[in-house]
């Protein structure tokens, strides 16, 4: 997928004015935020479990080379073929090659954000392979030629009426209006695609090093269908998704669905190991696993390594006041919200996403809900520092930050300056104690008044309190 995050600021203006989007985003709060909070407390010791989960991810990341080798060895021993890909183009080339090797013309696909990184569907169409997205959300997006706007609920930006119109137009069937009817129609339209596909493409939520298995969590059952019925299965995932043992994966599974959709467990958890045995009636004869780097290995051993703990639950975006107001498309690439504001610059180049590290209020909600305790605001701050050091900030912002730094290091002048400013602003506030215009802060005062300070600084008041 093309990275258009450089256009973030323009997109924000557009998205804030989009009434339909704003209405759709309001559902995030009730379904995902409240949904998570209702079930996360089922975990007996949540903090201990989050610590354990972060520890499991760190154990792998701190020795990623050997855990990857362990996974590869086990997977290969069970008959899977492991491929390594440096970039999205590598993945596309490998999948097209597998399709050609097995004479595949049609593929059914379950949701994979890593495949979105690669733009796999377009590449396969060009190679003459017809790909059918089968996750309901992804299927809707494929019909509408749109990109996902959320990593768990890809079509969160669309309402029921838009989907009714889309189905009526594309399926050439009478327009349905109920959600259950729409789901039934999609099921019936997609059934033949499952049954006829020669190749199934899936992502992988985890790779289990102990057994060489690919683990996928799904609700719709499409993940099971695409990994059971076609004669070839291709699983595509990132190199960081390795987890040591089945026990470790069990700990992570207590957190992932609860954090993602407010479910104690997803409907299906499938642990797939090797290919069909001769006597089996079902299952793929060929199992290919593609491990994508695409910039991940550069983060190993550095100050941003913690980002690779991410298990893609989406809780950070559901709880982010920025995401809640602009949705996922504004972020301009596959991953939105706080995790995307870090991953997009890290994987795609910080110079291509100048606004994303700054698209945060640092309220800390993201790290408070992160199941693997990624210090997301800290990582965003490190990116901002990097921007400043590399001269990527505007001259005005650089000057302001330098001035602020100098002032902070000179307490006497700081006290004088803040005292003068507080008094001046009180005067400007006048009788209603509100500032209607403030030079240099029109971004604030254009839309609302700024309450004027009381006239004294905190330090002055503190001194007075001390004297009493």
């Amino acid at each position, binding site marked *: 997928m093309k990275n258009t995050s450089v256009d973030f600021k323009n997109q924000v203006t557009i998205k804030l004015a989009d009434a339909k989007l704003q209405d759709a985003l309001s559902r995030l709060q009730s379904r995902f935020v409240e949904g998570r909070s209702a079930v996360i407390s089922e975990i007996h010791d949540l903090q201990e479990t989050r610590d354990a989960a972060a520890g499991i991810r760190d154990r792998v990341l701190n020795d990623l080379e050997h855990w*990857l080798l362990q996974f590869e060895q086990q997977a290969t021993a*069970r008959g899977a073929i492991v491929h390594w890909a440096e970039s999205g183009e590598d993945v596309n080339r490998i999948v097209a090659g597998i399709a050609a090797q097995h004479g595949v013309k049609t593929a059914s696909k379950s949701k994979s954000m890593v495949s979105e990184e690669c733009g796999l569907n377009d590449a396969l169409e060009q190679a003459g392979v017809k790909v059918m997205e089968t996750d309901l959300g992804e299927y809707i997006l494929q019909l509408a030629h749109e990109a996902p706007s959320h990593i768990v609920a890809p*079509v969160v930006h669309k309402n029921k009426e838009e989907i009714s119109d889309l189905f009526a137009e594309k399926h050439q069937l009478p327009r349905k209006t109920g959600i259950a009817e729409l*789901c039934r129609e999609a*099921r019936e339209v997609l059934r033949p695609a499952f049954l006829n596909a020669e190749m199934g493409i899936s992502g992988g939520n985890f790779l289990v090093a102990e057994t060489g298995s690919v683990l996928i969590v799904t609700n719709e*059952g499409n993940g099971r269908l695409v990994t059971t019925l076609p004669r070839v299965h291709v699983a595509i995932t990132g190199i960081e998704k390795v987890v040591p043992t089945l026990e470790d994966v069990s700990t992570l599974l207590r957190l992932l669905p609860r954090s993602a959709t407010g479910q104690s*467990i997803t409907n299906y958890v499938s642990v797939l190991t090797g290919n069909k*045995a001769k006597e089996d009636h*079902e*299952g793929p004869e060929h199992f290919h696993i593609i491990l994508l780097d695409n910039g991940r290995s550069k983060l190993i051993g550095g100050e941003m390594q913690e980002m690779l703990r991410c298990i893609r639950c989406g809780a950070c975006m559901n709880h982010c006041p920025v995401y809640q107001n602009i949705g996922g498309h504004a972020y301009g690439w596959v991953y939105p919200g706080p995790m995307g504001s870090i991953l997009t610059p890290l994987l795609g180049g910080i110079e291509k996403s100048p606004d994303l590290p700054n698209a945060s209020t640092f309220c800390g909600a993201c790290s408070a809900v992160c199941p693997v305790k990624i210090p997301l605001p800290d990582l965003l701050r490190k990116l901002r520092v990097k921007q400043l050091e590399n001269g990527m900030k505007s001259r005005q912002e650089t000057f302001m930050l330098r001035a602020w730094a100098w002032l902070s290091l000179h307490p006497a002048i700081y006290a004088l300056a803040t005292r003068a400013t507080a008094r001046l602003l009180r005067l400007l506030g006048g009788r209603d104690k509100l500032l209607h215009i403030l030079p240099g802060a029109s971004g604030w005062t254009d839309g609302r008044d700024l309450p004027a300070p009381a006239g004294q600084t905190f330090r002055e008041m503190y001194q007075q309190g001390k004297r009493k």
Partner: protein
Amino acid sequence: MNARDKILGRIRDAQNHARAGNQMDAIASHLEQHPRGPLPPPPDDLVACFSERALKLSSDVLKADHLAEVPQLLARYLNERQLPMRGVCWPSLAGLQWGAAGLEMQSRPARDDDPVGVTGAFCAIAETGTLMMLSGVETPATTSLLPETHVAVVNPGRIVATMEEAWDQMRKECEQPPRAVNFISGPSRTADIEQTVTLGAHGPYRVLLILAPL
């Protein structure tokens, strides 16, 4: 240099592990011990806990005193819902008196148009009301996937507390994991349209669990 060597090389350089031997030992010992993380407190009554959780996830639960009662219970369940009285079952359940209960059951893997699929379960997990299914010649995965109604006959003696206990059970009874281990928790569902949960996406619309001692 191929992609594999480049990727692994970059990681190796970044981590600069001087003593690879020790790293491998640490990995081997973690794999051997496969320690468990924090666990929920064990439930007082595994069967009651399993049933309660399964109901919460929209599975239906019935209890039978003997395995032989299963066909009658299923016939009544299907009748009440005006569902087709035919389907497929795992070979291990082929000996039940399906015909006497008015059911037409074939012992074979499921096809697209089979309305009912009857399976057993390797074990069940009380913590989440979940079935654990191991794929195999005698235990095809399609039976729990293609039909609109999935019926699982669960031996209450095979209900364990957690997924961790289920893995230990698998390690004890199987040389290696089967091609597919499927954990099933209720009927398939989607919430992709307006985040509204709808049962019956691409898998079964309903899951009936019949607790029957074997």
